[in-house]
């Protein structure tokens, strides 16, 4: 009976949860929300993810890079949010994310078009990433006089760029007679 008296005095503490949504506090790390329009496919979130919940894979046949998040494996640490340069992935307050039967319902995939290298015709980066790099360099006070020469360099894959640099160096050395 003592408990009943106590219970009458106190207010009811139980959340009326499935009927009324539960309000989480500020800074709650819920589901990392993916905004496709902001993503440039740089892959820094994939590198930062400690549990490999994020993946970025090249699909040569379709010519797209496939960015995928698997909330099954996500540990909600927020590292992807920290490193994302465009805030395409950011922690939300969403906690309602249970699914029945199919694990694939907990995945989000974004397909980003790939770009070919000018020299060797191999896919090496996404189109958005290339445009983003160009726009960043222009807005950071790039010398627009020699733009064509520089664009050639920007549209070459890292392997070709390496070969090119080695060839230039070797030529210079030959001239000097080393």
């Amino acid at each position: 009976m003592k408990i009943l008296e106590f219970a009458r005095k106190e207010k009811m503490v139980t959340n009326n949860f499935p009927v009324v949504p539960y309000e989480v506090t500020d800074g709650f790390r819920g589901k990392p929300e993916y905004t496709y329009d902001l993503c440039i496919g740089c892959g820094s979130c994939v590198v930062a993810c400690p549990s490999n919940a994020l993946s970025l894979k090249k699909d040569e046949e379709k010519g797209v890079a496939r960015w995928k998040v698997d909330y099954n494996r996500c540990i909600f640490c927020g590292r992807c949010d920290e490193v994302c340069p465009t805030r395409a992935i950011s922690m939300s307050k969403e906690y309602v994310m249970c699914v029945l039967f199919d694990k694939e319902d907990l995945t989000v995939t974004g397909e980003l078009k790939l770009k070919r290298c000018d020299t060797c015709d191999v896919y090496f980066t996404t189109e958005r990433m290339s445009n983003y790099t160009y726009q960043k360099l222009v807005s950071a006070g790039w010398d627009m006089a020699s733009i064509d020469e520089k664009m050639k360099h920007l549209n070459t894959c890292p392997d070709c760029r390496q070969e090119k640099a080695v060839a230039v160096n070797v030529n210079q050395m030959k001239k000097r007679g080393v």
Partner: protein
Amino acid sequence: MGPLYTIPEDIQRENTLEKKLAHLDKIKRTFFVYRVDAGSCNGCDIEIFAVITPLWDPERLGFKLVASPRHADILVCTGSVTRDMRYPLIRAYEAMPDPKIVAAIGACGCSGGIFHDAYGNWGGIDSHIPVDLFVPGCPPHPATILQGLALALGIVDQKLKKTVYDNDEGKIPFDGTSILNNTLFERDLYVESKSLMGYIHGRVLFKKYCEAMKTAKRPEDASEIAELIKHLIAQEEDPRYAECLRVLHNTVYMNWIDSMMVMGEEGKNQYIIKGA
């Protein structure tokens, strides 16, 4: 290598989706929940105990924790399956009366989680026994667990669906606008505010500084910006933001202005904001 465990035929026959749904329809009593820890770090178990406290009270929805799998309708499994806990998990599964409903709680239960490539880990719950309900989170919030149990009962609807975006138009989320006509200034400001206050508060700090600068008529005018930031610091309620705004102004902004129009040490000292 074949599958680690094949479900006996009689269990398979009794556990079809139709039979489970029929069971849900005709059941007129409390759902008994049995919990198995298949090698978790105890985080998810603590959250399950949080769920059965009066704050969440799953018994008003009709869930009751029981001590034996022989009584259970729902098997709640936590943790990635370790070698030693695999057999007890399968025994608990086989001991349940048909039809069996299995819920995997936490990132580890759903897919192996952060331990997915560890040597002692044999994958998530679903690589051993068929799982009906996935509750992600590391650990899941009590509300998530309760919502999952309610979802298994059909009280609430499933929110998430598999999403694929494939209409790439090559547009980029960056227009190259800058306050000082050079985005390297924004970059320096952002890097410094992140290193001062971390990524969550650093973003707020960066936003505060930028918005104050945008109200200025001439952002290159150090005296105007110094007045604006002084005003902002005086208004700021949080002393951490006030101090960091001061540091940002004295280091990043003054260095940029100094490199744009050489002011010298004395000229710089005029516009430096001194701390309290």
